[in-house]
């Protein structure tokens, strides 16, 4: 039948046509816009700040980025489904505290317990979002409060700090392999797995579909509810695991971390080109987003001597500049509609 069907002039629709090529270029820039900004920033910093390019400094940026990256990994999945998870900051802190407490029972407990607990909080988010149909923003705002409250309850209103004595746990946070900290390696592995899940599995396709057009995804017979539930569990568990890594690094379960971390994670994900409305996004972009944030913080420090208030003005302004730049780069004509 295919041979007998008349073939229309389809020059317009070839991959090589100017229109399609433009779309491809646009999507490439959209995806890599943040990366381009990152490269420019790094080059400028390298050239103008003597201590920026030192191996030590770069290693430290990588290490610092790894914690936020693990949180942002889960957040990326959630945002691609069209959701959002504001609870990660509190959950992250909770994970750290629980890990520090559990470290008295060894490495396994220090990892498993917080990941399970935080996964359970993610499960609550997921059930409320996917089953009860509540808006993710408000559900996870509530669990943000809840996790913080739980943390305070565990630590006797924040007056107890658990310190980590177990050397295996401490090593998880503070030793290195091939010059890079263990948390960096762990984050890389997690992103690798995440990338395969997102781009190479049916689940990944369903994640995109859920965020792209939920109603259609349901009619296509995709397990939309399960997908949503899963991403919130993932996000909670990963935030908790980031807490584990941080506690191992800090050698104690610090109660004051994670305030506002959800916004950092969201900003990183969005700067990385993931659409907050769902349906599109990349993990590489998220890594770039996280790196941008930490590189800029590092540069502000290297410049030195800036008033702390001016520092926040600069970082807010920078956030906008990056987003605007990316937006302008990616602006293709079709979007003028």
């Amino acid at each position: 039948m295919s041979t007998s069907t008349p073939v229309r002039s389809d020059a317009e629709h070839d991959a090589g046509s100017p229109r399609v090529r433009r779309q491809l270029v646009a999507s490439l820039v959209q995806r890599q816009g943040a990366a381009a900004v990152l490269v420019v920033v790094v080059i400028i910093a390298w050239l103008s700040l003597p201590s920026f390019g030192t191996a030590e400094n770069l290693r430290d940026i990588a290490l610092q980025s790894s914690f936020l990256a693990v949180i942002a990994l889960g957040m990326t999945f959630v945002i691609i489904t069209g959701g959002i998870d504001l609870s990660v900051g509190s959950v992250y802190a909770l994970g750290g505290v629980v890990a520090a407490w559990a470290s008295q029972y060894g490495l396994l407990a220090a990892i498993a317990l917080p990941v399970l607990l935080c996964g359970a909080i993610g499960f609550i988010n997921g059930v409320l979002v996917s089953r009860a149909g509540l808006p993710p923003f408000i559900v996870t705002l509530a669990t943000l409060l809840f996790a913080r409250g739980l943390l305070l309850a565990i630590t006797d209103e924040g007056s107890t700090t658990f310190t980590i004595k177990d050397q295996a746990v401490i090593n998880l946070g503070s030793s290195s392999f091939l010059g890079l900290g263990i948390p960096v390696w762990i984050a890389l592995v997690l992103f690798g797995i995440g990338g395969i899940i997102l781009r190479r599995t049916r689940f990944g396709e369903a994640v995109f579909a859920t965020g792209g057009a939920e109603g259609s995804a349901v009619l296509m017979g995709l397990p939309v509810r399960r997908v949503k539930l899963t991403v919130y569990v993932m996000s909670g568990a990963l935030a908790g695991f980031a807490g584990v890594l941080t506690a191992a690094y800090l050698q104690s379960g610090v109660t004051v971390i994670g305030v506002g971390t959800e916004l950092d994670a969201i900003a990183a994900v969005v700067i990385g080109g993931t659409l907050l409305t769902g349906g599109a996004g990349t993990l590489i972009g998220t890594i770039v987003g996280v790196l941008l944030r930490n590189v800029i913080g590092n540069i502000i420090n290297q410049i030195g001597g800036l008033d702390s208030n001016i520092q926040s003005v600069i970082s807010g302004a920078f956030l906008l500049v990056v987003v605007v730049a990316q937006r302008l780069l990616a602006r293709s004509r079709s979007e003028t509609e």
Partner: protein
Amino acid sequence: MTQQALQMHGATKRFGGTLALDDVTFELQPGSVHALIGENGAGKSTLIKVLTGVYQLDEGEVRLRGEPVAFANPAEAQRAGISTIYQEVNLIPLRSVAANIFMGREPTRFGLVDKRRMEREAAEHLDRLGIEVDVRRPVGSLGLGAQQMVALARAVSTAADVVIMDEPTSSLEPREVATLFSVIERLHQQGIAIIYVSHRLDELYAVCDTVTVLRDGRRVHTGPLADLPRLELVSMMLGRDVGEVRAHGATTFGERAHEVDESAPLLLEADHLRSRGRIEDVTVQIRPGEIVGLAGLLGSGRSETARTILGALPRDGGEVLLAGKAVPGGNIAASMRAGISMLAEDRKTDGIIPHLSIRDNICLAALPTLSSAGLVNRDKQDAVVRDLMERLRIKASGPDQKVVELSGGNQQKVLLARWLATHPKVLLLDEPTRGIDVGAKAEVQALIEELARDGLGVLLISSELEELVDGPDRVVVLRDGRSVLELDEEEVTAERILGAYAAAGEPTFEEIIEEAAVASDTEEPR
């Protein structure tokens, strides 16, 4: 007695106060192609959604191959062997064509999605349907018609015993319709039962063997289709007797009731329009009181022409004059102020404001005239809304009902009402009768006639050949984003239009149909 493929007994479904299905019994024989027809809002889509687990029945039961089933969601229905094309195109716009076709059942290797195989097979499926697109393209970048073909490819590429199609042809061209028919024929030969919903009666007679008629949520008739006269079918649908239907002329545009003054100055001149990557060179002219048809194959750029005239797409070349005055490009508000309105093709994404009331939807574009000093004038609004709802016979519980709760056809009428409320000088209608029932269609067509008589200029885009042949005073044919031919009233025939499509040596409609039939005969069941 043979086992029924699908059965429904005493099905009742309520939406708040609306009784969408009322004690409906429906039986689908294996291997049958079963037409489901009814007015807009009769309950066809609801019946389908109930069958496939989108909605749950309030009362009654569904049996699949004799076994009672209660699907909690579409996924379960799919797993049980029911494959469905829903009325509104339900694809994931940002994902690729290939991903959409295989969504949820992607071919895997070692547990991972085998993208290469998926793309290859997707291309094969589409090829079989005569569609050539880059399967890596996001599906949202395709026109609605092409999207419908993708949805078709998706539906028929699953192994199913029952295939349900809810108005699959509403945006398709004769050629694609023919392809669809060949697909149906093939499925039929494989013993697959099909439920087919359409407002195009010709199609029903061409492919269906049985018909069920719904009216106001109730089943009024089931029986063989071939020996049922058209008029009787329509009268059952509308609940009017045959004589009345005949008097109304239930199908097409009325006789040419209006005269176009050939000497009158042009109302709309769109000269050498270009919108990069979409249309290359389109010229369309409309006189006051004239209906100009825009014909072309899927993707030939008709919608894009209308959008460029309205200013929804950037204009990169050419000019638009309204009554001699230039209209700036790329500025919808300015075009509308000048008197150009457009009914968009995709009512779901480009038309309705789903959660607003019918009243607000109708008044939306005409707000400035229905308000004073920025304050909404409720009385003026009510007058306009009441009038239009009556004129277009919009079936709803009242002007305060949310538009999302209306049936597809009634949504379409609400949109028409919106544009009529703006009192435009030129109305661009992109598939105005898409998905509306025969009764309403006649009304809409009559309305278009009436508007033209009052001096309105109409640009009519339609994928129904009949509509293009009967309605317009002139037809402009597009090919690959260029206007290639203009046919005057006397010249407009289906053959001429198809001939123009086929200028590059493409076969005519009859040839296509024939060819499709041959192809499906020879095609081996997979």
